[in-house]
């Protein structure tokens, strides 16, 4: 029985099953968006065509990656919580708070460039982590559900703490734009235009590819290593799948909640930094909000897998960056992409379940075939003792 031939479903079968859901989701979303476009009196095909050709221009691709970077970080933050059945809705509050504090610290510090940047990033992670830990501690000590506490902490963070700090730190100047003090050059993230242009033509239209995408990639790799290759990551997943079995295996449920919230918050603290360190060099009114909530959708779309999340973030980044062209030419309202995003998530969730059922059925079938075909063989197959036993224990 040690010489089994098929250990799992064949590779091509697993790939087909893995791709079936997102592809189906994409097709369905295009179909529904087309109906919406026709109903609103637009012709979908030129609209898609225009989006497609505009979307793959170099400058739009730069926009896409810049948009995908914070989405990716946000989704990884949410996914860390999801892996242990914690729903961290608080990424929103965590990243906005982390961004303003990191921006202010960055402006006040003066350090050599690599160190300065590192300190800012660590400050952002620490802030997000501490804020998320409040929810973790409340859950462990008082049994308060993290959905409730993180929603409330979002309100506290955004409407109270950030508002207060912003009043405090806003630098008065003649412009109407409110902003914290400017971060000196040593604390700015270098852009990647030079690197990209060695492969392509020059990036035009004043577009800048934020260097923070590198940080996002590193975070993605670390996330994968943590979850798939370390014991604490295994403990986290085991607790998410079956907390009681994990507990019996020696995983402390409280400790795991604290660790998961701290890590989720730390990654969440990075979400706002790409634009603070790569575009604005300050925290200001133009700061992008709602990335924390968008991250939940992307994590769902990517099924908490670092690669899947990357694809999800890029798809959303593409839709966001290609959509404005629709308004320019008047083919269709650009809000159509919001419909598409909604349908993608909706369809993805459904198709994932369908595909998962399918895969389970195929696995169960393979397992029962193994049962049927491997009649116990007294010479090799059975445990050494089983052939010598009776239906009752020896008496």
């Amino acid at each position: 029985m040690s010489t089994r031939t098929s250990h799992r479903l064949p590779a091509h079968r697993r790939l087909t099953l893995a791709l079936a859901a997102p592809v189906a989701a994409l097709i369905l979303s295009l179909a529904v968006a087309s109906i919406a476009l026709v109903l609103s009196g637009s012709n979908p095909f030129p609209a898609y065509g225009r989006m497609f050709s505009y979307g793959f221009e170099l400058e739009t691709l730069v926009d896409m990656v810049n948009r995908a970077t914070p989405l990716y970080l946000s989704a990884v933050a949410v996914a860390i919580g999801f892996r242990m059945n914690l729903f961290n809705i608080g990424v929103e509050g965590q990243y906005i708070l982390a961004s303003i504090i990191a921006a202010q610290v960055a402006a006040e510090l003066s350090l050599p460039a690599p160190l300065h940047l590192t300190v800012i990033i660590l400050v952002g992670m620490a802030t997000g982590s501490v804020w998320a830990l409040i929810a973790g501690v409340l859950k462990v000590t008082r049994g308060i559900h993290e959905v409730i506490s993180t929603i409330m902490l979002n309100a506290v963070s955004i409407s109270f703490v950030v508002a207060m700090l912003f009043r405090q730190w806003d630098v008065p100047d003649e412009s109407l734009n409110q902003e914290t003090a400017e971060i000196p050059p040593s604390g700015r993230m270098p852009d990647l235009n030079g690197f990209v242009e060695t492969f392509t033509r020059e990036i035009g239209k004043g577009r800048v590819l934020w260097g923070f995408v590198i940080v996002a990639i590193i975070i993605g790799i670390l996330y994968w290593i943590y979850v798939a290759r370390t014991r604490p990551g295994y403990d986290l997943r085991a607790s998410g799948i079956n907390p009681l079995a994990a507990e019996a295996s020696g995983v402390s449920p409280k400790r795991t909640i604290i660790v998961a919230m701290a890590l989720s918050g730390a990654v969440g603290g990075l979400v706002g930094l790409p634009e603070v360190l790569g575009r604005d060099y300050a925290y200001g009114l133009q700061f992008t909000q709602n990335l924390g909530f968008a991250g939940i959708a992307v994590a769902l779309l990517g099924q908490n897998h670092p690669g899947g999340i990357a694809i999800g973030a890029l798809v959303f980044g593409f839709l966001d960056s290609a959509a404005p062209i629709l308004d320019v030419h008047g083919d269709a309202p650009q809000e159509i992409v919001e419909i598409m995003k909604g349908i993608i998530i909706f369809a993805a969730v459904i198709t994932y379940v369908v595909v998962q059922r399918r895969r389970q059925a195929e696995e169960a079938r393979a397992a029962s075939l193994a049962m049927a075909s491997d009649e116990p063989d007294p010479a090799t197959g059975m445990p050494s003792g089983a052939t010598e036993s009776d239906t009752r224990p020896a008496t």
Partner: protein
Amino acid sequence: MTPALSLENITKRFPGVLANDRVNLTVAEGEIHAICGENGAGKSTLMNVLYGMLPADEGRIVVRGDEVHFRSPRDALAAGIGMVHQHFMLADNLTVLENIILGAEPTGRGGRIDFAGARRRVTELSDAYGLDVHLDEPVENLGVGERQRVEIIKVLYRGARILILDEPTSVLVPHEVEELFRNMRDMCARGETIVFIDHKLDEVLEIADTITVLRAGRTVATVKPDEVSPRDLAELMVGSELPTPEARTTTVRDTVSLQVESLSVLDDDEREVVKGISLEVRRGEIVGVAGVEGNGQIEFVEALLGIREPSQGRVLLEGADINEWTVRRRREAGIGYIPEDRHRRGLLLPAPLWENAMCGHQGKEPYSRKGFWLTPKAARSKTRELIAAFDVRTPGPDVAAHALSGGNQQKLIIGREMVMTPNLLIAAHPTRGIDVGAQAAVWETLHQAREQGLAVLLVSADLDELIGLSDRLLVIFRGRISAALDPATVTPRELGAHMTGAAGEVEEMQHA
């Protein structure tokens, strides 16, 4: 005479699996017809087909001479077939009467429920069949035996003349089983027909008028109980000759592995459910803790593992006080654990087998290096090893645990503890719900490990298992050790009496 029920050439396929392969079953009017077979033999599928929950792919169902086609359990009930499931389907907060009429309420004028009429009918039924129930008691206050009677009355109330009982004895203690059998005979005497699923051989032989044995989806034999021995029946079920038992020799050594000193434990509601238990298990010894569920065993085991903090007393492992140790430290010190419920505390169902095999040993080689880095490759090959050694029927270590049948899941759990050679094994109901073949394999594994010097604390309610495996037997009753018995001399009946507190003089526990 026309049979009450006959199934002809029933075939049911699931994708890739032939669950029922031309099964034939003929049940005579007024008889108790037992259906036995191993887990996965197709008993449940057959009953689900008969009860209208699954459509058959081929074959005919004939009830009293008329061919029927059931599309739902409602159709089956209309034809007079009712089923009592293994897991009760009762609303805890309703009374017995309300539960019985739920979904079939007799209505009076203006749609009001006619409780008086319902009470009359239910009382008639329970009197006629000797099914003793308290109609106004909320179901949550009832014991298992009475819940089962409520389920039976529920089915009778809906007019069933053919009752299907799905493993009705699996949840009962011995004296409750006797009462159930009495009820079954009474019902048959009054013209009911009973189809009874079970895999406990002695019970089947005691109660059944006719026995049909299924194996691998086929009918292998239909026999009368006086024509066969338990051994014949077991061989029919398993399909091969079973070996003979071996003599018991003691392997108990001097070193005390586990020592428990007046341990008390509270449950989640802060009630003291374990009251000052003291016991010890030596290396090479199996100590059986016999008890009906709910007498504090779960909390006791959780306290030993460190999941639950004791309110009083201490636990020593190989002489060291481990009261302050975390679960992880205890597991790493060599405490193996077979949980009472494999799905609840044992398995990560959607995860692959190799990740299940490392659950509880994730900090040890070969599953990880330096207690931190997972080593999936080595973990997979270790899992393959245990799959082979413990005869887990699976295509390989990457299959998800939920794809396996219950018996194979249990073998995986036992294998994952045994391959890591624990010092102390806490085995709670290690063979619950698995078939005779797998059960024998588990028993043999424990026997052999004991010879190698393993200390085993066996918590169980299975009389054969307790008597056959244990070197010493302790009875746990209402949180206390109520008796210490010698497995060499005690009879199942005596043990059962102690477990239910029915033994007249409760011996004081004397432990070595």
